[in-house]
């Protein structure tokens, strides 16, 4: 019966309750949507990083990651790559050679990271082949070996498809090696920094330029079927990789790992700020509701409603009021979020700044379901916390005085 009284009390002053419910709902719509937008941006960044840049898991020879030394390589790379691909949890694996060349073109020079890849294997691990804006994906056309470059580097060095570049690097024996490549294609990812510093050439071409032995690789990159349980896959890969280093993307790119982990905290802080603001509104509403009913509360105390029940009744009213707005807000916020899950939000006005840090200029919202549960729980807690002060006010009433209040 106390539930029924509490619910009816919520609607005693309809205008006041509706204003409060609308305020809570709007606050939560904004909160849910903002969280979904931020999560969407981070998800897109992770997707870009894992599918275009670093993949899910990589294997390197011990100490190679410290300074990319050419002489530190994985032996029997093809066999290892095939064994890894046969693991149930793996989708694909690709072995690569890596060099840090000096690039000379007609209109400028630059540095970067050159990856020697087997196109057919690489296509299954990285989506660079789908990011071409011009040209072909490492198809040989003529006598010069092909090179795939990023749009940012192409702009910087004024290169086009068919342009020639000269690439210099130190080979296995420590000698300077120079080789001409012809630009076969230009790619564009959401990360302009990646586009400016990464070049792709054929495995065989880089192997020859570096004078590397057969069947070796500096890196084996792989994509897993389920990205949520990489640690388990990592341990299986480690068993096959022997002494070589196996690292998941969070270890390969700790900055991004921190970003994703801190995003959850940012989201909670953001929603807590919204709820804290709403909390004051709810306290005010509940306080008015209690002060208006001094006589009635006094009567309830007089006829035997104990303090625990009075407290519960006011607490329930506050939670019901808050939850009404909360449910509407979370529902509408989710609806809007669902819409933008398939229709991206265009933030191209800020694309230059965003792409510099690897963020896409089109964001698809993403709202983790556990976040909805957490928000709902936080809304209930807000309702309870907001009721404490008004409820304490009610409990301090003297029934004899309260029943005679005008």
């Amino acid at each position, binding site marked *: 019966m106390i539930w029924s*009284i509490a619910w009816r009390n919520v609607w005693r002053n309809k205008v006041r309750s509706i204003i409060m419910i609308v305020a809570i709902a709007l606050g939560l719509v904004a909160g849910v949507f903002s969280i979904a937008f931020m999560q969407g941006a981070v998800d897109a960044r992770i997707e870009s990083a894992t599918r275009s840049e670093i993949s899910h898991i990589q294997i390197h020879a011990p100490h190679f990651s410290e300074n990319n030394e050419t002489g530190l390589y994985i032996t029997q790379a093809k066999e290892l790559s095939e064994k890894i691909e046969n693991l149930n949890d793996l989708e694909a694996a690709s072995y690569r050679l890596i060099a840090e060349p000096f690039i000379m073109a007609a209109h400028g020079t630059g540095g970067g990271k050159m990856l020697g890849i087997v196109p057919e294997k690489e296509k299954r691990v990285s989506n660079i082949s789908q990011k071409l804006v011009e040209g072909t994906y490492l198809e040989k056309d003529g006598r010069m070996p092909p090179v795939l470059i990023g749009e940012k580097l192409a702009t910087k060095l004024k290169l086009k498809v068919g342009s020639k570049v000269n690439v210099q690097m130190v080979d296995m024996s420590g000698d300077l090696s120079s080789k001409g490549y012809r630009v076969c294609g230009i790619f564009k990812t959401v990360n302009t920094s990646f586009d400016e510093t990464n070049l792709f050439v054929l495995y065989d071409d880089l192997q020859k330029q570096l004078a590397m032995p057969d069947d070796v690789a500096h890196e084996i990159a792989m994509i897993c079927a389920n990205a949520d349980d990489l640690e388990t896959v990592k341990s299986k890969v480690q068993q096959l990789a022997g002494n070589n280093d196996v690292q998941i993307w969070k270890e390969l790119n700790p900055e991004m790992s921190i970003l994703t982990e801190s995003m959850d905290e940012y989201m909670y802080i953001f929603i807590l700020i919204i709820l804290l603001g709403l909390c004051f509104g709810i306290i005010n509403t509940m306080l008015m509701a209690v002060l208006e009913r001094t*006589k*009635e509360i006094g*009567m*309830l105390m*007089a*006829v035997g409603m*104990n303090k625990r029940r009075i407290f519960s009744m006011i607490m329930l009213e506050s939670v019901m009021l808050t939850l009404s707005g909360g449910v509407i807000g979370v529902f509408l916020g989710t609806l809007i979020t669902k819409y933008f899950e398939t229709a991206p939000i265009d933030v191209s006005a800020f694309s230059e700044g965003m792409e510099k840090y690897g963020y896409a200029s089109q964001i698809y919202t993403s709202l983790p379901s556990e976040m909805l549960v957490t928000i709902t729980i936080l809304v209930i807690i807000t309702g309870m916390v907001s009721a404490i002060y008004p409820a304490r006010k009610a409990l301090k009433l003297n029934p*004899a005085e309260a029943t005679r209040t005008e």
Partner: protein
Amino acid sequence: MKIIQIKNLHKIYNSDSVSVHAVNGVDLSFEEGEFTAIVGPSGSGKTTLLNIVGGLDEATEGSVEVDGVKINELSARKLTDFRMKNIGFVFQAYNLVPVLTAKENVEFIMHLQGANKNDREARTTELLKAVGLGEMMNRRPSKLSGGQQQRVAVARALASKPKFVLADEPTANLDSHSTENLLDIMELLNKEENITFIFSTHDQRVVHKARRVITIEDGKIISDEVK
């Protein structure tokens, strides 16, 4: 059989500069089935006396014993429980819960007592019929007249089968017809069900109906007449 025994009761209100002796050495007792009016001018202490007897206010000195229990020695929690089980209240301004129907207002007290649904419904119907509101059980207070609301309040006061009912100026807001009607109902319940009623009142119609009239002035009993 004595159900209330008041001994040497004092109540002093202290404010910054003034000390008011609202109840000053009252000794009284009430028998089961009494229909008593406590009368006196405004500020004479009759409401304070009623509040202390009802466990709503604390005495400065003295004791109130209800059915053998010294209520001024009970903890706040036990006192609330004691009120719920033993005392019915009727207030001047009715004090019904506006969001509940007449039936729910009466039933609510029994709900607090933990009575089961069937018992609650049977007793609520019986009481509302007894006060002449059998046809209006599902109306909210705003849809009832002042007299009807006060009759719901009487039914509510009786819902918990109390040992006695304290009515603080129950007719003050009612017209003559409603007052007569209400007093007739309470008198009937008193005679037929032996329910003890104690009124504080200015109303001569209540005084006229009462079988015992206690007059209080400046916190002291100045007369106690049994008709």
